């Protein structure tokens, strides 16, 4: 069966600058119906028609799951990235018709938790916008620690403070404020679950500290905001479809495969869900595995690759696609 996600036809109903880097986009259904219900932490994949390229980028839904008249996402402009965020900032205007996927949740709340302890870094705040709204609606116990570079880049910090008051703690890098993580982690009530979303360094730090303080790994949840990294162009042969394609500098392997008319499965496009896993038939060169799905052993074996984020440098690569 096809594993592509189900699509929704939407129209951009509003575009709101939030600060110098972040812009918020609102979507409504073209047919005027309600959008599907979702759960806090879910993302949608937004299709961007940028000239003759189609970009597909995942963004967390940040509105309240209790209100599905519209979906909202926030996009941080990345001037050195591959261009998706720039396209959103420059070309997406109210009234534009777009296609997005149904919501997919790879960062869901563990509803058994007695308390939800959340750590956000930068634009990693977006999934927590929906999660806090969901928990607040059910009288759930949560506490959010949010670090950002400066107060003016504290996206939605004011909104969160106003909604939840002391359940929100803010930390500003330019004032040298830092989460006292060890103390925080060692003073939580039994049954607390930890959620982290932000830069890789922050996620690794939190996972590491939690592990050494004896937190069970089932109580630690995280979402990488990993966009595919650009790199040197390379050639790939797709054995099943019999095509040879070139992966451009700014393109991911998955995008190049899609551009060649092959329709591989995906859910996250960020190297975490496992959907796009592909067998390597032969290779001569070296993999740059950027995914968080395959094991170390898989990486070393050279038998598998996650085309949504991983790259290759070398003479030849043949994939089973």
């Amino acid at each position, binding site marked *: *069966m*096809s*594993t592509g*996600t*189900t699509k929704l036809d939407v129209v951009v109903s509003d575009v709101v600058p939030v600060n110098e880097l972040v812009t918020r986009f609102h979507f409504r259904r073209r047919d005027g119906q309600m959008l*599907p*219900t*979702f*759960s806090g*932490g*879910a993302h949608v994949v937004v299709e961007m028609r940028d000239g003759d390229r189609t970009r597909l980028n995942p963004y967390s839904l940040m509105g309240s*799951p209790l209100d599905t008249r519209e979906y909202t996402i926030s996009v941080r402009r990345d001037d050195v990235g591959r261009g998706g965020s720039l396209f959103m900032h420059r070309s997406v205007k109210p009234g534009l018709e777009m296609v997005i996927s*149904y*919501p*997919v*949740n790879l960062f*869901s709340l*563990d*509803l*058994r938790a007695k308390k939800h302890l959340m750590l956000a870094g930068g634009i990693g705040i977006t999934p927590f916008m929906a999660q806090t709204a*969901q928990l607040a609606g*059910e009288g759930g116990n949560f506490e959010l620690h949010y670090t950002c570079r400066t107060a003016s880049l504290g996206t939605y910090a004011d909104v969160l403070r106003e909604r939840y008051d002391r359940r929100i703690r803010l930390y500003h890098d330019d004032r040298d404020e830092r989460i006292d993580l060890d103390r925080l982690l060692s003073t939580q009530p039994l049954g607390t679950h930890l959620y982290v979303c932000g830069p890789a360094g922050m996620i690794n730090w939190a996972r590491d500290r939690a592990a050494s303080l004896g937190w069970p*790994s*089932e109580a630690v949840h995280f979402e990488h905001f990993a966009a595919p990294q650009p790199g040197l162009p390379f050639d790939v042969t797709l054995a099943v479809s019999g095509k040879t394609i070139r992966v451009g500098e700014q393109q991911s392997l998955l995008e190049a495969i899609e551009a060649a008319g092959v329709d591989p499965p995906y*859910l996250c496009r960020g190297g975490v*869900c*496992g*959907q796009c896993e592909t067998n390597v038939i032969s290779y001569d060169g070296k993999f740059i595995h950027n995914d968080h799905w395959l094991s170390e052993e898989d990486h070393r074996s050279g038998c598998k690759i996650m085309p949504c984020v991983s790259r290759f440098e070398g003479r030849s690569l043949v994939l089973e696609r």
Partner: protein
Amino acid sequence: MGITFRKETFRDDFTFRNSPEHIRRFPFPFHEDAYMYAVNIEPHVVGPKGSVLENLIDVDEHYVAEMQDRALVLAEDPLRCQSLPHMTLAGWDLLELLMEQQALGYPEHFTLTRDGDRWRWINRPLGIDDTFTFGDTSTLPYGPMEYITRQSQGDFCILDQRDGNLWMDAGMVTTQADWSLDFDIGMNFFEWHAPVPLAHEKGIFTRALKFLTNIQQGKPARRLNWTMTINPRLDTSPENYHKWGPDRTTVTPENVGDKVHLRVELQSFWRLPRSNGIVFPIRCYLIKMDELVTQPKWARRLHRVIRDLPEELATYKGLTRYRPTLVEWLSRLDDGSVTSPGFGPD
């Protein structure tokens, strides 16, 4: 035109029957003359008119009788319905799904009206007309899962997804083929599948789990499973083995047609939107041999399937005792001609 609901029983005097139209819509599970265990999953999309797939949640002539039988089972054994505390939200998800689908498919029998969180649910076959607040358990006579699954045919397992696994953390299970919610509750996917033979190469289960954890909202999937039951008993739980187990020794060449039933389970898999859980509705269809063989193609094919079934599978499905009697009886209806491809009758 609405459905005419039958008055019938699944115990004691066993008056359960399928009408001729229902025989033709029976989900016969064998598309060829042999059966092999396989993870035969496909998208759960609407199928042909007049089939059990005409609607994604099927309601048929046995609805009222099945709901009465469920109430009897629950009265004797309330543990057939359980929901761990963190699964209440998933229960509301399921309530919404079942009310929406039943009202959509059978507007003459079910009506759902919503005014924000104020919902009104009318179930005419069962004489129910309730107004409640969505999300507020105190406004319903039972928890949301129990409330709606006392009004929906089939068993329901609600699974929580976490740590890359699925956990059987809630369910309404009164018509199961020899497994027990009370035993499986709180177990993960590998734990509750531990007893299945032949599928044991770990690969099958790892792949199945991967598929299920990736089930997406708006894209349900389904598969068919089958076994056989003596007498049209819905409740063949391990708890009641002493009641149905001995039935297997009562099959004689004279009563095969009346006693032996093919039991087909249509399992579907849905992602629940608010809780991010997964629900498996397991819908059970029963047909006695006398009814099944009114379709000559099915009679010929079932004969070949049962005759050639590997011994381990026959044992697993509990057919061993009466298989020779059944095969002998079916063989008289198999003229050796070729069966046409596909599931449907000719």
